C-alpha cells in the first residue's frame, strides 16, 4: 500500500538528514530513504575489523555550519567535536615541519627553515581569516544568478554587491586571486619554504583532479579554511565516535522532529506526472507518494538516473553530462597493533593527536598529479593522515590504534586494468610510502581497508567516487553549481528538489546545502499555501 508523505528525501547522508530535519521541524511529514543499512552516506563509522572503528570515508569535521549545530541542538543528540590542532609534515631525510596551536613554537619551527616565512605565516593566517569572513556570507544564502535577474536574484545580487563593496580593496583583490590562481602560486606570494608551501597548498587539491599548480585550486584551499568551530575559523576537529557520529546526531534530531528514516531502501526512480513529482519508486517496487521529493544524491544521479531525460530541458541534461566529477581520492584505513613511530618525531607525543601530511614539496605533489593525469595512481601519493584512536580512545582497543589515510591521486579512470585488479597493489604503494616515514608501520598492521574511487562509488553512490559530489573548482561553484539556471535547489520538475553537496556551497561535512534547500522547499510551500488561501 502506498504511504503518502509531505516530503521524501532521497539519500540519508548528512545533507539529506539535515534537509529532512529542517522540513520535519517545520511540521512536514518527512521520510528519508537510505540505500545502505546505516545512515550517513560518506559520513559513516564502521567496525570493519572487530574492535577497530573506521571513519571509512570522510574523517574530519570543520565546515559543519555552526547554526545547524545550534538549531538542531546536535550536542544534545551526541555530537562532540574534539580538537585537532596540529599538522606534522615529515620529510624524507628525517626532518619535519610541525605546526600546532602554540603560536611561538610554530614560529620557531617555521623559522628553522626561514624566519621570513615564520613572520609571513601570521599575515597569511590573517589574510585567510579575511577571506573566510568574506565568503562566510555566501555559505548562508542561495546563490542568485546574475544572468537570470528574477526579483529574488536581483535582491540577492544587491546584497552580495553591498557585502563585497564593504571589503577593504586589498581583501577584494585577494578574493579574486583566490578564485583564479593555483594553490601553489597563491602560497608563493607569502612563503619560500617548499615543505610549508606544499603542505598549505595540499588543502587545495583535495577532492579535485588538479595539481597544486593548476589554476582554481586556490579556491579549494579556501574552502578548507572556511570552517569554524566555536567561532574560530580554520579550526578542524574530530567527531567523537568518528564521522558517523555526526550523521547519527543529525538523524537523531530529525527523528525527534518526527522524520521517518528508512534504511535498506534504495530508490529506483522519481515518479513524475505532468511535470510534477508525485513520489518515488523503490528498487523493490514499492511506491511512496509525496508532493515534495528532494534528492541529496549528486547531480548525475539526481538528474540522469532518477528521472527520465525527457522530463528535463536539454541544456540541463548536457550541463550535467559535462559536470566534472573525476574522483581522484582514495582512503586506506589501518588497524594497528601499536602507535605509529615517526622517524622525525619518535615515540608518543601530541603530534599523534593531529594531522600528518605526506607533502614534502610542491614538486612531490605535482609529480603525484602527473601520474594521475595519464591514468595511473600516484607512485608516491599525497597522504593526509589522522589517528582517531589517539584523539578518541573509543575508536580502538586500549593501546591499539586506527589510522585514517586519505590518499591522492587515485584516478577513477585507470589507463590500464581495473580498480578491482589494482586495489591491493595500490594499498601496498600507500603503505610503502608511509613506511618511509613510519619505520614500524609494516610490523604493526593488523588489518587494512582499501577504499578506491570505485569502492566509494559502489558503496555510497557518489558518481566516480568524487567526495564533494563534483569538483569544487570555480567553474562549478555558486550559481554554476551544478548548472547555470538550476543552482537554486529547484529542478525543472515541480516539487523535485536537490539538496546535496552538488549544490551551493558544496562538499565537506557542512550541511549548508541541505539547510538552504529546505528553506527553498518551505518558501515554495508557503507560497502555494498563500496562493490557495488567496483564492
Amino acid at each position, binding site marked *: 500500500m502506498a504511504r503518502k508523505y509531505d516530503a521524501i528525501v532521497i539519500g540519508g547522508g548528512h545533507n539529506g538528514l539535515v534537509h529532512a530535519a529542517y522540513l520535519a521541524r517545520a511540521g512536514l511529514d518527512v521520510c528519508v530513504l537510505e540505500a545502505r543499512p546505516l545512515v550517513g552516506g560518506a559520513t559513516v563509522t564502521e567496525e570493519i575489523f572487530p574492535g577497530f572503528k573506521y571513519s571509512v570515508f570522510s574523517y574530519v569535521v570543520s565546515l559543519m555550519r555552526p547554526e545547524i549545530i545550534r538549531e538542531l541542538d546536535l550536542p544534545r543528540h551526541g555530537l562532540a567535536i574534539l580538537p585537532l590542532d596540529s599538522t606534522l609534515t615529515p620529510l624524507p631525510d628525517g626532518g619535519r615541519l610541525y605546526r600546532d596551536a*602554540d*603560536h*611561538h*613554537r610554530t*614560529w*620557531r619551527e617555521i623559522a628553522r627553515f626561514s*624566519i*621570513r616565512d*615564520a*613572520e*609571513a605565516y*601570521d*599575515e597569511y593566517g*590573517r589574510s585567510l*581569516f*579575511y577571506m573566510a569572513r568574506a565568503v562566510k556570507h555566501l555559505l548562508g544564502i542561495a546563490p542568485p544568478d546574475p544572468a537570470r535577474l528574477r526579483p529574488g536574484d536581483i535582491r540577492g545580487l544587491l546584497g552580495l554587491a553591498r557585502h563585497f563593496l564593504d571589503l*577593504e580593496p586589498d581583501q577584494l583583490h585577494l578574493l579574486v586571486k583566490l578564485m583564479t590562481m593555483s594553490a601553489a602560486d597563491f602560497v608563493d606570494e607569502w612563503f619560500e619554504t617548499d615543505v610549508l608551501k606544499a603542505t598549505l597548498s595540499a588543502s587545495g587539491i583535495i577532492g579535485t583532479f588538479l595539481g597544486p599548480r593548476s589554476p582554481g585550486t586556490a579556491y579549494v584551499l579556501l574552502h578548507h579554511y572556511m570552517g569554524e568551530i566555536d567561532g574560530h575559523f580554520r579550526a578542524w576537529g574530530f567527531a567523537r565516535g568518528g564521522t558517523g557520529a555526526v550523521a547519527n546526531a543529525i538523524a537523531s534530531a530529525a527523528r525527534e522532529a518526527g522524520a521517518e528514516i528508512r534504511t535498506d531502501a534504495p530508490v529506483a526512480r522519481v515518479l513524475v506526472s505532468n511535470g510534477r513529482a508525485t513520489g518515488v519508486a523503490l528498487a523493490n517496487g514499492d511506491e511512496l507518494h509525496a508532493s515534495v521529493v528532494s534528492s541529496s544524491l549528486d547531480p548525475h544521479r539526481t538528474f540522469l538516473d532518477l528521472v527520465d531525460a525527457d522530463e528535463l530541458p536539454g541544456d540541463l541534461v548536457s550541463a550535467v553530462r559535462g559536470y566534472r566529477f573525476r574522483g581522484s581520492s582514495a582512503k586506506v584505513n589501518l588497524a594497528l597493533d601499536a602507535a605509529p613511530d615517526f622517524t622525525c618525531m619518535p615515540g608518543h607525543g601530541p603530534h599523534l593527536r593531529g594531522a600528518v601530511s605526506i607533502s614534502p614539496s610542491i614538486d612531490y605533489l605535482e609529480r603525484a598529479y602527473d601520474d594521475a593525469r595519464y591514468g595511473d595512481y600516484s607512485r608516491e601519493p599525497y597522504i593526509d593522515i589522522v589517528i582517531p584512536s589517539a584523539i578518541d580512545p573509543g575508536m580502538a582497543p586500549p593501546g591499539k590504534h586506527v589510522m585514517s589515510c586519505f590518499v591522492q591521486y587515485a584516478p577513477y579512470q585507470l589507463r590500464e586494468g581495473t580498480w578491482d585488479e589494482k586495489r591491493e597493489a595500490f594499498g601496498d604503494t600507500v603503505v610503502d610510502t608511509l613506511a618511509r616515514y613510519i619505520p614500524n608501520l609494516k610490523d604493526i598492521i593488523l588489518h587494512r581497508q582499501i577504499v578506491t574511487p570505485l569502492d566509494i562509488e559502489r558503496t555510497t553512490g557518489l558518481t566516480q567516487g568524487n567526495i564533494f559530489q563534483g569538483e569544487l573548482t570555480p567553474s562549478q561553484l555558486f550559481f554554476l553549481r551544478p548548472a547555470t539556471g538550476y543552482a537554486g535547489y529547484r529542478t525543472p520538475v515541480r516539487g523535485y528538489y536537490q539538496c546535496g553537496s552538488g549544490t551551493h556551497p558544496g562538499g565537506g561535512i557542512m550541511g549548508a546545502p541541505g539547510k538552504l534547500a529546505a528553506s527553498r522547499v518551505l518558501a515554495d510551500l508557503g507560497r502555494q499555501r498563500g496562493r490557495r488561501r488567496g483564492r
Partner: protein
Amino acid sequence: MLLETPFHPRTAALCRSSRWRNWSGCAAALSYEPGHEYEYYAVRNGSALFDVSPLRKYEVTGPDAAALVDRVVTRNVFRCAEGRVLYTPWCDEAGKLIDDGTVQRLGADTFRITAADPCLRWFQDCALGMDATVRDVTLDLAALALQGPTSRDILARLVTGADTRSLPYFALVQGSIGPAPVTITRTGYTGDLGYEIWVPTNHGLDVWDALIETGRGYGLAPAGLDALDVARIEAGLLLKEVDYVSSWAALIESRKSSPYEAGLGWTVQPRPGRDFVGRRALEREAAKPSDWALAGLEADWPGIEKRFAAVGLPPLVAGRASRDAVPIYERGGRAAGRQIGYVTSATFSPILKKYIALATIRREFASPGSRIEIELTVEFVRHKVPARVVETPFFDPARKRT
C-alpha cells in the same frame, strides 16, 4: 612549549613563586617572590635586574643602513649620532603603528633595533634597492635591564674599558664585564635611572653572576614582569597589544592606532626630503587630527576608598597593575554617562600613592585637567568614580636623565 632564556639556569633557581608568563615564547618570571612589592621597590630604591632577553633584536649594517632605518621608523635617524639611542615606533603605509622599540647606533653604518615582535621580513622588504643587510640577532644576544637609583654605581664597579658613570641618557657605550664584551645603553622601561646590557648569549651568565654579586651591597634584586608593569605605567610607557594594537595584529581597522593617537606624535619627525613609511598618511592626520588620543588619568582616590568603605572593605585595587580594559564616561553636562574611551592599563602607584591609568580617549577630553569618570567594580557591582586627565610620565625623577 616555552623556550628558556640564557639566564634561565639562574632565574629558575631564584623563582620561588613559580609564577611565569609566556613572553614571546619564552618563560619569563612574573615575580621571584610570591608578591612583587619588594621587586617594585628595588626599582625605585635600589636596583632591579630584569631578564629582557625575549625582546627581538635586529642588526642593520651596510652603506645604506642609516637610510634604511630612517625609512622604517618615524623618527629622524640622521639626527641620531654614533653612540646614541632613539626610542621610536614604526608604522605601516597607512600610518598605523606596527611596533615600537629602540634604535642603537653602534657605528656610522651599524644599527641595532629592538622590537616586541618579529619584524625581520618587514625591515628586509623595506630595504628593497638599498645596500643594507638586516639580521635577526635575537638568539645571539642576551639582554638584561638594570634599573634603579643604585644602578650607576653597580655598573661603574663592574664595567671595564668604558666610562658608564658619565653615560648620558639614551646613549650607549661598549665595554666589558669580566670576560664578557657588552654594550651598555642608558635606557629602560621603568622611567628611573637605569641601563640595559646587551651581551653575547654564551657570556650571559657571567654578566648575571657579576651583577648579582656586586649588586649585593646596593640593594639589587632580580625582578619580574609584575614589578616592571607597575613601573612602566608610572613612567607613562606604552605596552604593545595592551595600550595599542599593532596594525599587523588588528583584525579590524578600528583597533589600529596612529602614533598621534597613541601619544607618540612627538616621534613623528618629518622634514623636507625625508620619506619614511607612513609619512603621507601621518601628514594627512597631522592636518586633520584623529578623534582619539592617549591620556594619563588619575582617579580620585578618596572616591575609590569611599566605594569600598561602603561595603566594609579596604580599597582592593592596590595590588598588581591591571591590563583589563575599563570604560571611561563623560562626566556632567548633557551627555553625562556617554562612553568616551577606555582605560588600557591601570595601577595603584606605590610611590605616588595614587591610582593612575593610561587610556585611549576622545581627543576633546584628552587635555590635562579634563574631568571624566572611569568604571570601577566593587563587590561585583559597577560604579563610576571621578578621574582627571594629567600629564605623563606620572613619575619622573630627575635621576632618570641626569
